[in-house]
């Protein structure tokens, strides 16, 4: 089946079997390997992408269902080549990333939170990432990263809901 996908503000026409998940399509057909296959049944959150700005599990969508949405992957988060967004920067600073497997999804989940809530409480941050499993960090530095990014973004008048 052919389907037209709007990914990171580019249109892609792909020809996929109906049974191909959006995750597999992103990774295998479009070489956007930032979304990771963790459990492939909707529990771990490593496959998170943004669909119309909301965090969604790409392993639970079929590619052929994904037309007509604005899809954002981690590859779109950096503002430019060699640059990092405030959120990505904060993850580096607080050591919120170790092996990196959960990280793109954590960043996108945080991005979705901060685009709606520029001053989340710690409970709200924890809730926003509660669907994402991390085996390395113990989560504390991830929560710190998100809080730090939120604080910085409030101070800098950055539009949280870009791109």
């Amino acid at each position, binding site marked *: 089946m052919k389907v037209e996908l709007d990914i990171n503000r580019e249109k892609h026409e792909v020809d996929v079997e*109906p049974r191909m*998940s959006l995750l597999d399509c992103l990774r295998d057909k479009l070489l956007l390997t930032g979304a990771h296959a963790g459990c*492939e*049944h*909707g*529990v771990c*959150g490593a496959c*998170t992408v943004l*669909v119309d700005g*909301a*965090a*969604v*599990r790409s*392993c*639970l*969508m*079929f590619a052929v*269902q994904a037309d*007509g949405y604005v899809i954002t992957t981690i590859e779109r988060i950096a503002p430019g080549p060699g640059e990092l967004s405030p959120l990505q920067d904060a993850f580096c600073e607080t050591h919120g990333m170790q092996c990196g497997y959960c990280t793109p999804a954590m960043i996108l*989940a945080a991005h*979705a939170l901060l685009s709606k809530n520029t001053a989340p409480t710690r409970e709200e941050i924890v*809730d*926003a990432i*509660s*669907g994402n499993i991390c085996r390395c960090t113990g989560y504390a530095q991830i929560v710190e990263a998100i809080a730090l990014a939120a604080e910085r973004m409030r101070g800098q008048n950055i539009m949280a809901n870009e791109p």
Partner: protein
Amino acid sequence: MLAADDGARVIAGGQTLVPLMAMRRARPSRLIDIARIPGLAYIRDQGKEIAIGATTRQCVVERDAVVRAKLPLLAKVMPFVGHTATRARGTVGGSIVNGDAAAEIILVAVTLGATLVWRDGGSDNAVAASDFFLGPMVTALPLTACFAEARFPVWSETRVGVGFHEINARQSDFAFVSAAAQIALDGEGRCTRAAIGIGAATAVPLRLHAVADDLKGQRYDEAAVRKSLTAALDGIEAMADLHASAAYRKRVAVTIAVRAIADAFADAARRP
């Protein structure tokens, strides 16, 4: 389409069906995606009931002002339904037809006595929630039918409060036991109406009519509530699995139901 191919299944949010497919526990030959068919997603205030269309996304219900005002118990449980990412896609209808006894939306449907409507061969069939859920993940929905609408009753009393608790390993994971309570109080703090439900402990959620009757005319009294719950749950056949024994579920059901009822009384008492 469903009648023509008995391997076909409806998909909407896919948040339950696709994991089942990934685990090869569901192997449909064909999927019929109804998620974006216009006219199947809605929240309609029909006075005595709020009608929610089958493909209404859970995140939409979570944020809806009418639901918050008129279905406080449903509004209360929505943050507990899965995770933010699953509520972005998952639907109210999907939760209901998958029939998981741990599902919060199903517990509210049973506790409040919702009416569930499906469409089969051009005609609509409505049943009470208590008749729809038959066993673990088993519902009365025929294979050729498509779920259409859930109608939740609205309480007209002014001082209505709600309470909800669930126990699980990780926040928002499947509950081992859950308890929901909706209470209406008169001006003196006595209960005029109650609805109490227990989820996840048994094959289908339980509505505790006896406990609701015991509460009528009473102010909140923990010992009396606990006694009433213990009696009501004494004979139930609780489920046992790797997460929790039947004995644990029975014991914890009483405790969290006490908490839910206490919260509902307090919540109602705060209203003028």
